C-alpha cells in the first residue's frame, strides 16, 4: 500500500507538469486551431531562464518563477507576431511546419550559448518527510500545489472574465467575433502569453525537480504533453489538465507494476485504445468541418 501511495505521489508530480505544458498546446489550438509544436522548446527556454535567474542573478524561488514566466510570455507573443500571424490565412500545414521550425530555432539558439547540460541550483530547501513509509519532499508538495493553483486561476480567468469570454468567443468563430468589437490580435496575444507562461512555470518547476537541463529537454516532454492534450480533448482546457494527470499516472504505474522496459509501449498502447473509443479525447467535442 505504501508502495502504491509513493508511486501515486510520483505520478501526481509528473502529471502536474505534463498538465501545465498541455494547457499551452490546448489554448493555442482552441483559439487558432493550430498545433504550436514550438511549445516544448518554450518550456525548455523557461527552464534556462530559471537557470540564468537562479545562477547569475541569484534570485530566490518566487522572483525566478515570475521572471521565467514573463520572459517566455514575451517570447511567445513575439513568436506569434513574427512567425504565425503572417500565416493566419495560410493552410494549417504551413503554420504547423513553421512551428516546428521555430522549435528547432530555439533549440539551436540555446545550443549556441552552451551545448553542456547545466546544473540548476536548489532554490527550495529540500526536506523530505516520511509519513507511514511514504517519502514526501518539499519540492513535490510545491510542484503539485503550485500547478493545481495555476490551473484553478486559469480556469477562473477563462470562465469568469471578459478576456476569457473573448477567448472562448474567438475559438467559436474567428471571423464574426472581431466584427463585434473584440480585438482579435490582442486576444490571441494574451492567449499566447498565458499558454507559454504556464509552459515556463512548468519548465521552472521541472528544472528544480530534475536539476540537469539541456537544450533538447523540451522535445520529449513536449511530445508527451501534446499527447496529454490530445487525450484530454485538444482545445479543451479542463481536458488538458485531466490528460496530463492521466498520462503521468499511466507512465508511472506501468513502470511500477510491470517491467519498466514496457513503460512507453504499454502506456501509449493504452492511450491509443482510449482514442479508438473517444477519438476527440476525453472532454473533446467533434467540431463540424466548415466547407
Amino acid at each position: 500500500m505504501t508502495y502504491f501511495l509513493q508511486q501515486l505521489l510520483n505520478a501526481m508530480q509528473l502529471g502536474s507538469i505534463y498538465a501545465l505544458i498541455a494547457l499551452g498546446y490546448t489554448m493555442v489550438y482552441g483559439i487558432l486551431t493550430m498545433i504550436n509544436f514550438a511549445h516544448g522548446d518554450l518550456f525548455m527556454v523557461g527552464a534556462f531562464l530559471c537557470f540564468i535567474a537562479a545562477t547569475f542573478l541569484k534570485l530566490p524561488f518566487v522572483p525566478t518563477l515570475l521572471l521565467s514566466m514573463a520572459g517566455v510570455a514575451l517570447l511567445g507573443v513575439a513568436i506569434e507576431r513574427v512567425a504565425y500571424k503572417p500565416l493566419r490565412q495560410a493552410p494549417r500545414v504551413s503554420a504547423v511546419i513553421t512551428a516546428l521550425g521555430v522549435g528547432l530555432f530555439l533549440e539551436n539558439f540555446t545550443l549556441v550559448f552552451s551545448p553542456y547540460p547545466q546544473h540548476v541550483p536548489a532554490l527550495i530547501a529540500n526536506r523530505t518527510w516520511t509519513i507511514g513509509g511514504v517519502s514526501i519532499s518539499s519540492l513535490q508538495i510545491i510542484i503539485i500545489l503550485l500547478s493545481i493553483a495555476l490551473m484553478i486561476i486559469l480556469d477562473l480567468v477563462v470562465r469568469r472574465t471578459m478576456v476569457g469570454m473573448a477567448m472562448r468567443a474567438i475559438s467559436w468563430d474567428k471571423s464574426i467575433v472581431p466584427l463585434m468589437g473584440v480585438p482579435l490580435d490582442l486576444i490571441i496575444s494574451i492567449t499566447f502569453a498565458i499558454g507559454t507562461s504556464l509552459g515556463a512555470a512548468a519548465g521552472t518547476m521541472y528544472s528544480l525537480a530534475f536539476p540537469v537541463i539541456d537544450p533538447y529537454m523540451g522535445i520529449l516532454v513536449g511530445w508527451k504533453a501534446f499527447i496529454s492534450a490530445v487525450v484530454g480533448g485538444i482545445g479543451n482546457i479542463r481536458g488538458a489538465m485531466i490528460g496530463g494527470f492521466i498520462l503521468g499516472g499511466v507512465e508511472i504505474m506501468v513502470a511500477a507494476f510491470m517491467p519498466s522496459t514496457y513503460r512507453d509501449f504499454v502506456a501509449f498502447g493504452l492511450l491509443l485504445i482510449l482514442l479508438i473509443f473517444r477519438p476527440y479525447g476525453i472532454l473533446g467535442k467533434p467540431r463540424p468541418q466548415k466547407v
Partner: protein
Amino acid sequence: MKKGMLLFTLMILVSIAASACGGGASDTIKVGVVAELTGDIPAVGASCKNAAEMSVQEVNDAGGLDVGGKKYKIELFIEDNAGKADQSASAAQKLITQQNVVAIIGPNASRYAIPASEIAESSKVVLISPWSTNPKTTLDAKTNAPKKYVFRACFIDPFQGRVVAKFALDNLKTTKAAVLYDVASDYNKGIAEFFKKTFEENGGTVVAFETYTTGDKDFSAQLTKIKDAQPEVIFLPNYYSEVPLQIQQAHRLGIETPFLGSDSWGSAELIQLCGADCEGYYFSTHYAPDAATPQATKFIEAYKAKYGQTPDDVAALTYDAFGLFYQAIQSAGKVDRQAVRDALAVIPKYEGVTGNLQFQEGSGDPIKSAVILQIKDGKFVWFANANP
C-alpha cells in the same frame, strides 16, 4: 554547350582520380576525428577534441612525423556527430570520401561508434574509437567475427561489468544489487547485462533490473521500485549527464545504499552537476590521474597547461588512440590506408597514458587493465586496480 559538358566530365574524372589516391601524394597525413561536440554528452566530445588537437600540435611542432624516411605534417579534420547515430555515420563517410583521411579517431560513445564503424569497415579505412567499450563496435553485426578495420584504445564492457560486479561482491561485501540503465543505448544495456551475469554467477542476486529510455528525467517510478526491493548497492552504468539526476532523486526518495558506476561517470562535469550527492561513490574507469605513470604525468601536465583542467579518461584515451596511429603508420613506413591497418593489427606493445596495451590476436580489442576510482571531496581518487 559541348565544351561545357566536356569540362564537367573532366572535372568529375579529376576529382575521382584525386579521391582514389587516398591522400598519399602530399606531405601531410590527413586524420579525421568524429566527436560528440554537441548533443547529450558534449563534455566527451570536448575532451576528445582537446586531446586530438594537442597530440597533433605536439607532432607538428616537432617537425612532423617520420614515415619511411620522410617528414609528414598531420592535418586534422574534426567532425561533430551532434550526438546522433546517423550523423556519426555520415560524418565518417564525409571524412573518408571528401577529406580523404588515412584513419579516423572516434566516435567515443558506443551508440555513435557502432554506426560509424560500419562505414569505416565497408570503406576499408582504419577507425580507432578511444572510449567505445561495447563489444559490438569491433564485431561484425552479421557474422559476429571481428571487424578488420575497427580498433579501440579501451577495454570492453564484459571486462568492465565483471570488474564492477567483483568489486561490489568482494570489496563492498554486498550480495543484493539493483541496476537502473538506459535500455535505448548500446553501452548502458551491454554493461548492465554483463554486470548482472557476473554478479549472479558469483553468488549475488540482482533484486531489481530497471530501465528507462534516453532523454527521461523522471526516474521516480523505477527508483521507488528499486527501494521496495531493498538492494544493498545500486549500479548505474549511465552517462554523466543522467547519473546526477538519478542519484539526487534516489536520495529524495530516501535511498541510502552506495552507488556504483562505470567509465561513463568519469567526466569532471559529473561532480559539477551532482555536487555533494555523489560523494563517496565508486566507478570503474581507464586510468587514474592521481596515480599515474611518468608517461601519463607528462601528458597530464601538458594538458593542464594547455586547457587548465585535469584530462579525463576520454582525453587520455584519445591521446593514446593518436599514439597508436602514429606508431602504426611509422611501422607501416608509408601513408596508405591498408598498410596502416596491417601495421596496427600487429603492434607488439604500445605504452600509453592509460597503461600498456596490445591487440588480441585477430581483433581490435586490446588487453588492458582497469582502475576503480572513488569520488572524494569533489575529486576522482584512485581506489583499486583490476587486471584482466
